[in-house]
């Protein structure tokens, strides 16, 4: 290796430097992977009794749904934050959650809660995914067709559409029979207890299929995170990459939302923690760490929900409460920038 040309300044600089605690990212992946595996095992095995042939497949189904949602939400949030260059945004800003609520509301309003709940889950799932993907596609097409239109305008349009969807939903909910509304309300929270196994397999295929291009983009995403101008200067086709990433994000969110309900709430937490744990920024480590944190948050949260609170509260409350505390601790320790 090349010898250092100016040993003195280097020594001086290093002596005044704050000691940086660095745990190699690979070690974090091992630690978090073990924790995630332990939680999954605990979820499958704690209080396991009765007819195993009945209970175990059901638990496997639920844990499968959680892992799938963790992957979809973690990957889409990290990717979305990279292309928007903003660490506090999540894909929910594009209004897909609100669209999901509107679809449920319209279905219940038009067909009645009984019909909606008894209609084939595959039909409902397909309607939801198709509508959500079609909405994102129209939004991107409309905004990118003009050429000069910016990503910020796209986000703004997403917010406006979200407000519109929420407004329309709440109007319909007010006109609705109160007893129907109570049934409808149940659909607004993520739940892993009503996942259809067939849909789970289909969704798993789609999510896995999207994770391949996302992973292959990892180096380009690292460059993209330096900002548009620098990325273009380094030869990244900015528009093409951003469009591709946005499409991946919206399909991931659409599939995960249609499967279990709105669940993007923990994306922000998971990505913020993942960035904290990575001493050096690389998608090749941020992505797996975010996914593992997502699995830990969901499976751990569900475990607490079932074992401690006996299903008496919502999963989002458990995760956001714990996550908020973790985040505050990090903030007070000065590790959040």
């Amino acid at each position, binding site marked *: 290796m090349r010898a250092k040309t100016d040993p003195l300044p280097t020594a001086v600089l290093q002596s005044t430097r704050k000691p940086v605690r660095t745990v190699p990212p690979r070690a974090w992946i091992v630690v978090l992977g073990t924790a995630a595996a332990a939680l999954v095992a605990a979820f499958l095995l704690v209080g396991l009794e009765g007819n195993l042939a009945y209970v175990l497949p059901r638990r496997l189904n639920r844990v499968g749904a959680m892992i799938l949602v963790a992957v979809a939400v973690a990957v889409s949030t990290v990717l979305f934050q990279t292309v928007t260059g903003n660490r506090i945004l999540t894909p929910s800003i594009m209004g897909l959650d609100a669209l999901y609520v509107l679809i449920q509301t319209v279905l219940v309003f038009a067909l009645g809660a009984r019909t909606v709940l008894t209609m084939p889950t595959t039909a409902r799932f397909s309607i939801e995914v198709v509508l959500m993907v079609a909405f994102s596609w129209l939004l991107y097409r409309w905004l990118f067709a003009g*050429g000069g239109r910016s990503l910020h305008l796209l986000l703004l349009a997403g917010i406006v559409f979200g407000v519109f969807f929420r407004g329309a939903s709440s109007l319909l909910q007010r006109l609705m029979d109160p007893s129907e509304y109570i049934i409808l309300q149940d659909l607004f929270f993520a739940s892993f207890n009503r996942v259809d196994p067939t849909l789970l397999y289909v969704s798993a295929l789609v999510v896995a299929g999207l994770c391949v291009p996302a992973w292959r983009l990892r180096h380009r995403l*690292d460059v993209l995170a330096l900002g548009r101008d620098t990325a273009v*200067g*380094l*030869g*990244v086709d900015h528009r093409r990459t951003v469009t591709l990433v946005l499409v991946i994000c919206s399909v991931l969110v659409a599939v995960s939302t249609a499967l279990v309900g709105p669940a993007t709430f923990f994306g922000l937490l998971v990505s913020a923690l993942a*960035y904290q744990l990575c001493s050096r*920024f690389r998608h090749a480590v941020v992505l797996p760490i975010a996914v593992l944190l997502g699995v830990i948050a969901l499976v751990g949260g569900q475990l607490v929900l079932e074992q401690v609170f006996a299903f008496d509260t919502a999963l989002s409350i458990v995760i956001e409460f714990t996550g908020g505390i973790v985040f505050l601790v990090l903030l007070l320790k000065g590790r959040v920038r």
Partner: protein
Amino acid sequence: MITLENATKRYGTTTVVDGVSATIPGGGVTSIIGPNGAGKSTLLSMMSRLLPLDAGTVHVDGLDVSTTPGRVLARTLGILRQENQLTVRLTVRDLVGFGRFPHNGGRPTVLDREHIERALDYLDLSGLADRFVDELSGGQRQRAFIAMVLAQDTDVILLDEPLNNLDMKHSVEMMQLLRRLVDELGKTVVLVIHDINFASCYSDTLMAMRDGAVIHQGPPEEIMTPAVLRDVYDVDIQVELIRGHRIGVYFA
């Protein structure tokens, strides 16, 4: 060498760069000067393919910037923008390493590491290589970004107002560095600059713009005259010969 043919940029009905045809010679410092709103930065952005052209073509070393694939062009053309804010936390060495992306697609080789160390060394950043970019001062950060462009190993480097936010010492160092890039490494450097005296002292060619057009181009001896400067800036500027450099005096 950069060849502009009828390069045009419009925003709505306003034409910001109006059919510019010019040739920027290879291997030298070319400074684009002119008053605010003359279209200097827009022209540079078009050469850097950051802004699409509405008409005309730009060729950099024979490559059409509008049609050449990004990765290919990025091995010939490096750019440095005014604002270099990072949202991600990177060490200086990691940042400089990104300069190798057009060559390695994100998988560094031994050769890439040599390029990175050489670039760090050239900008005197070896002692800062493991520091985080956001912990550096403005001048150091700008040097880190230049090291990245240097590691990119391109023949042509375009810089948009590199002296912005730099004090006198750092401005002088920056211009000396750009001179060294040309004299020692044979690069072609094109920059947008407001200070005509820095431009005069360090450039081989001055390109004067006004109202979206290049109205004068030539060596400092030709451009740094009261008549030409009046034409460009609408200001009476005395030009004094100080230690062999033409210095415009316009402060009082």
